[in-house]
């Protein structure tokens, strides 16, 4: 290599080192451990090893043990074992059993190479093979879907990776579908999920490290980032928070979310959880880190801000003014879902002077005969609405939608006719309910649903002043929130006016020249200047004079 190349190489290696850190999970007397499998070495006698394996794993009804003779080693005996359903049995036959039984001889190998080496190098056709030196390693490998191979006369074992993933097909994301834009959503298979990202970011700088979290579950957790865009300190922070988790199980990304939040007591989501690969890809391209957890389609992206909770990737695909308009509608809806019931009750109870006379008369006449004060009406209807919503989730799909809508309408109508509630209140509850679905991020919608109740109570007891108190309390809380160190309300406050192009509005794509200020102090350019499209100087027409 030329000297300039070697310099560049050194630079690159040093840079890669900046991101590296020990990815081993700490286990230091946290949760009570299960009885450890000892790290005993194997004996050279095959039958002894096989007996041990039989004892420890033979009770499983998907356990399969197959004895073979290795033709190439002169008929030496060996045993192959695995757990049937998490292994691709066709692969096992084709890449392990057949070669072992049929290959006539090893290739001429290294001098002093023993049987095992020969098997690995010449016979096994599977892609990933590892040596195991002790019992625990072998059993842990077999539990994750690898195939164990023991050979008579050898004190080591092999584990061959022919895993089969029981996977759902890639489908439209359940909670975040869109009209314009890709329709694929993550599934429970972390390899597939990584593939969905890699297909979008086809760069050697995209890195996906992995950890195994959970003492018993040993769940694969992937940490995905773009080397050079993500700050090394951020990557370290993410990895160290994950390594800290000494728990039995990590069943869903929600476990990780709750145990690594900056402020666990806040109702707001401080990590973005999404089913959409394009959203994760966009986040990673902005220098964020994605956390993928096996067995769940919800991937986490950190750090995140409030504005991410109200924006959707579709805003960027539909073109300039529409993205802005839709975003503003979303903000309005967010405010409505939080404040409408409170403001309604506050105004009709304390500040009737704010409404025109006809409206007051019609409200009063509608409320005639209703035995409850407004707040009780509201709580009844809200409770019904939430119950219907929850029930609608459990019902089988053909019924679910019909029951939700029809149920709401019919119950609402009947309630009005029985003079239990006033019609205006039904409208308020319905509008609030609809507005609460508007946040593209499920956890944010939950936060709104939750916060609505204290604010409504404040509005009922103290009118608009109460609502103001609620607003201020929420504002103060939000202003102090951080997501992995980044202030949650960036870039609104701390104010960075140039970044406002992408918060309340979505200004033209050609203006998004710089990466977000809260994540980058320097090196911010991501787009060349002057990309705003213009008509060309000449008109293009076929034929005519030269």
């Amino acid at each position, binding site marked *: 290599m030329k000297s300039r190349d070697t310099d560049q190489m050194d630079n690159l290696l040093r840079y890669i080192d900046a991101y590296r850190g020990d990815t081993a999970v700490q286990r230091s007397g946290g949760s009570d451990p299960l009885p450890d499998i000892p790290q005993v070495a194997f004996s050279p006698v095959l039958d002894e090893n096989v007996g041990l394996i039989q004892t420890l794993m033979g009770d499983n009804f998907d356990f399969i043990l197959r004895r073979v003779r290795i033709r190439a080693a002169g008929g030496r005996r060996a045993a192959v074992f695995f757990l049937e359903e998490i292994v691709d049995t066709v692969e096992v036959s084709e890449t392990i059993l057949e070669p072992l039984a049929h290959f006539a001889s090893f290739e001429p190998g290294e001098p002093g190479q023993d049987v095992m080496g020969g098997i690995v190098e010449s016979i096994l056709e599977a892609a990933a093979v590892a040596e195991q030196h002790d019992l625990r390693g072998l059993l842990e490998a077999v539990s994750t879907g690898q195939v164990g191979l023991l050979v008579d006369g050898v004190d080591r074992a092999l584990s061959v990776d022919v895993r089969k993933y029981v996977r759902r097909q890639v489908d439209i994301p359940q909670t975040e579908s869109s009209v314009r834009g890709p329709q694929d959503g993550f599934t429970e298979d972390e390899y597939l999920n990584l593939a969905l990202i890699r297909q979008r970011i086809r760069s050697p700088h995209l890195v996906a490290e992995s950890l195994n979290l959970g003492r018993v579950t040993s769940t694969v957790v992937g940490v995905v980032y773009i080397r050079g865009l993500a700050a090394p300190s951020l990557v370290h922070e993410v990895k160290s928070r994950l390594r800290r988790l000494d728990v039995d199980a990590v069943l869903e990304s929600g476990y990780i979310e709750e145990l690594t939040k900056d402020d666990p007591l806040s109702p707001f989501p401080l990590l973005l959880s999404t089913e959409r690969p394009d959203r994760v890809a966009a986040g990673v391209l902005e220098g964020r880190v994605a956390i993928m957890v096996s067995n769940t389609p919800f991937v986490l992206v950190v750090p995140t801000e409030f504005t991410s909770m109200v924006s959707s990737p579709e805003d960027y695909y539909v073109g300039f003014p529409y993205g802005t308009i839709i975003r503003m509608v979303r903000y309005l809806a967010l405010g409505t879902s939080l404040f409408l019931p409170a403001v309604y009750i506050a105004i009709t109870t304390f500040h009737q002077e*704010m409404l*025109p006379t006809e409206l007051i008369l019609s409200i009063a006449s509608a409320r005639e005969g209703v035995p409850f004060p407004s707040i009780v009406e509201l709580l009844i209807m809200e409770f019904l609405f939430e119950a219907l919503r929850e029930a609608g989730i459990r019902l089988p799909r053909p019924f679910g939608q019909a029951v939700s809508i029809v149920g709401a309408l019919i119950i609402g109508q009947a309630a009005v006719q029985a003079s239990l509630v006033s019609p205006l209140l039904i409208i308020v509850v319905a509008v609030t309910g609809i507005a609460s679905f508007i946040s593209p991020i499920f956890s944010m919608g939950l936060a709104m649903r939750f916060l609505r109740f204290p604010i409504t109570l404040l509005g009922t007891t103290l*009118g608009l002043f109460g609502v*103001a*108190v609620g607003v201020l309390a929420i*504002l103060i809380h939000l202003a*102090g929130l951080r997501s992995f160190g980044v202030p949650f309300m960036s870039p609104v406050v*701390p104010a960075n006016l140039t970044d406002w192009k992408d918060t309340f509005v979505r200004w033209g794509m050609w203006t998004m020249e710089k990466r977000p200020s809260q994540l980058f102090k320097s090196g911010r350019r991501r787009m060349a200047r002057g990309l705003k499209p213009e008509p060309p100087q000449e008109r293009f027409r076929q034929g005519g004079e030269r």
Partner: protein
Amino acid sequence: MREEGRISSYQAMNFIIAIILPTAILVLPSLTAERAAENAWLSPVIAFVLGLGIAYVAASLALRFPDKTVIQFAPSLLGPVLGKIVGLVFIGYFFFITIVVQREFAELMTNLFYDRTPNIVFVGLLTGLAVYVVYKGLEVLARVNDIIILLFLFSILFFLVVVIKDLRPQAFLPFLGEGIGPVVFSAIPPAAWFAEAVVIMMLVPFLQDKGKAIKANIAAVTIVFLSLMIITVGTIGILGSSETATFHFASFAVVRRIEFAGLEFFQRQDALFMALWVGAMLMKLGAFFYVGVLALSQWFNLRSYRPIIVPLATFFTVLSVQSWDSFSEFALFTGQTVPLVIGSVAYGVTLFLFVVAMLRRKELDGKA
């Protein structure tokens, strides 16, 4: 835990605006109209000159000791005994205003909107929020403040736009009918209000760009002046000077009258302005309370100001409710006593410190 937060000069400017503006636009029109009647609009102008002066003085004095608040640098300037006394005076100043603000807030709410609710409810709730924000620290206070002050200033612009066509020029005549005397006399309260900008002396150690401290302070005072002019002119122009003098809360009286032709819906929208004003008052209360708590903790050389937040807050809540028996007593107090007290502390003590700093400049520069 010493305060580790840092704020930008833009946030400092907003901080000072929040320190002065919310109560200024509330009571100053009435106070100045009482004394100068139809010429009351001139008093903010005179006061502004004084205010600019003291803002400059306070900021440049604070910059001489860029990492110390006034509580910390007063002993360096005046010696241990006198310095501590001056510190105590400022602490009293901050807490005095805190209590007045609490009561002012409660009185407005109970007199204009919720007449059957006792004062303590409002003082308690607002103070509770102030405790929350002070507990979270300077940066959070500054961030919330940025949002609220922005909205508040917008609402003042809105006020201007709405009010401008209905101003009656005859409300401002005769011009100087009784000479300049009453006008100068009426400039005392606004001048005292502008002088609240000396709070910058508590903020300079936490500024990221200290060089801009003077600019920030001056800008803040200027924005307050313009807003105050808008409100004063608007109020006198709509209500007339004698009405303005009568209503303690003159600006709300004007807002109540805003109507939009054709949109019958929009009558009596003063509750909206009230909601915004609640936010602004919270910021003023939070700002003074923060500064006071920080000052007290520095005076006692405490490691952190957090433990004293709640006890002090409770104490002040009680004081604000108990110190005045009625609204009229309080209104009189606000009109007569408050401007003199806060004016003399802000102008007097700050100038005294400045003069001493000037005189000892050679000594101090030599040491530093």
